[in-house]
């Protein structure tokens, strides 16, 4: 089997586009949240400036090897997730390095960054980081349950583990989307989506008022900048998965931009409407509302 080397620069181009889109989108959503609170909110370019500032800090300290690797793992999770699923369906340039079993790999990468972060934050030795990561892992684990169930339902429905094939099966009209062919799976996955986007009501992990900023308490300078970079890429990568699995994928960049924006807006909308859950409340909420939907989706298929 010959490898198409040209795929690598194209995949990097995808990462570059998604990175910039993610930075702008993040600021834009924050602005929308601010407007809901009757503020102007940050300028749309603020995320770029913060990133440059953090890379430009003159000092940084370390707590050990894992402390270095934490943000690196996190960024690997984000970029890996993006690289192994097709971003634009039917495009040679932006199909990235997708292959037959990429759905399984994507499921793994969604979790990968959190695990790396747990090790890194653990080594920082700060009690707030430990509390934050405990909360984060419990919440992400339980939010992963309905998502995994929904993904299995979709995989069973289309009898494939390739994201490209799943997108292909949804082409030819809005009614072919998984949203309409398997609404239960989409409902379960969208509830899980809320849990992993780090917005209210599920943002207790980084809750600044109770535990200063959670896992990244000790992270600063370039470490923090790496994590901010991931913060731009990872949500978009995750929404690419959602878009591909449930909303018919995207055949062009404008379609991609609109769908990802609407998905992000969904979590922001829920976020400004509802107050924050504590971790045990959110776990109970996921187990009661989201997991049964996922089980039903599998049974329905």
């Amino acid at each position, binding site marked *: 089997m010959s490898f198409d080397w040209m795929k690598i620069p194209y995949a990097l181009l995808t990462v570059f586009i998604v990175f910039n889109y993610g930075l702008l989108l993040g600021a834009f959503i924050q602005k929308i949240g*601010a407007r809901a*609170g*009757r*503020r*102007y*909110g*940050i*300028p749309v370019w*603020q995320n770029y*400036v*913060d990133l*440059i*500032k953090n890379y*430009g*800090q*003159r*000092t*940084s*300290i370390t707590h050990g090897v894992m402390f270095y690797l934490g943000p690196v793992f996190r960024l690997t999770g984000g970029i890996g997730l993006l690289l192994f699923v097709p971003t634009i369906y039917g495009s040679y340039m932006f199909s990235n390095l997708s292959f037959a079993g990429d759905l399984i790999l994507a499921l793994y990468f969604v979790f990968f960054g959190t695990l790396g972060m747990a090790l890194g934050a653990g080594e920082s030795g700060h009690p*707030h980081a430990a509390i934050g990561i405990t909360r984060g892992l419990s919440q992400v684990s339980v939010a992963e349950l309905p998502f995994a169930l929904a993904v299995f339902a979709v995989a069973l429905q289309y009898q494939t583990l390739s994201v490209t094939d799943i997108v292909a099966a949804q082409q030819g009209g809005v009614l072919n989307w998984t949203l309409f062919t398997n609404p239960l799976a989409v409902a379960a996955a969208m509830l899980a989506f809320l849990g992993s986007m780090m917005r209210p009501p599920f943002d207790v992990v980084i809750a*600044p*008022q109770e535990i*200063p*900023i959670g896992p*990244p*308490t*000790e*992270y*600063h*300078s370039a470490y*923090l900048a790496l994590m901010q970079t991931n913060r731009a890429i990872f949500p978009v990568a995750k929404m690419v998965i959602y878009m591909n699995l449930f909303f018919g994928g995207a055949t062009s960049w404008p379609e991609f931009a609109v769908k990802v924006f609407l998905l992000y807006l969904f979590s922001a909308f829920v976020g400004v409407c509802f107050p924050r859950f504590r971790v045990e409340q959110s776990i109970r909420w996921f187990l009661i509302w989201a997991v049964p939907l996922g089980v039903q989706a599998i049974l329905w298929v």
Partner: protein
Amino acid sequence: MEQELKPELQKRMVKGPDGVEFEVEPLRDYYCEALPTVQHGAYFKIVEDFFNWARAQSLWILGFGTGCGAIEMRPLMTPRFDAYRYGIQWRPTPRQANLLVISGYLSVKTLKRAIRAYEQMQSPKYVVGLGSCTINGGMYWDSYNTIKRLDDYMPVDLYIVGCMPRPEALLAGFEDLKKLIRAGKAEGANQYAEKFDWYKSNQKRVIHDWDMPDYNW
């Protein structure tokens, strides 16, 4: 003047849960003893100017209210004054913040915490003294328990006068601080490193229960 250390900070033998005895010396084990050094900017002036511009446009304030003036910072986060549109945000941890606002009078007890917070921040870092109390003691000028001049204990880049200054004054002050940073004149962290002994002797003169290392990262 050497002080008697608190029991939990003294060197002692500890028996672990697995029965192994080991020695713990908290001041040495839990802190890094390296003293601050002068940090030079980027080699090319244009790069450093660019970084300074970014630093000015992204002021992350440590959410640590030291005195009554802290109440004037809260309206800045709310719709009426909304400092976020000027690139000013609040961070809950000193590691990520680059601006320490000493908001009002500083009691000796709080000074200790303020020093620790300041030293944990990463360079370049800025200090703003808010209110008259940080300049000359203000209405607490004859108090036995507050410091009079903040400048003696940490390098202050900018004072905002008033008792207390209104949020508008704070915003104007932050805009002035931005000008200083952009001009490369806000080098407080390096000043602190250069005159470290002077600052430490001043700090130790008022803090009588000094039970921490000289510089805690």
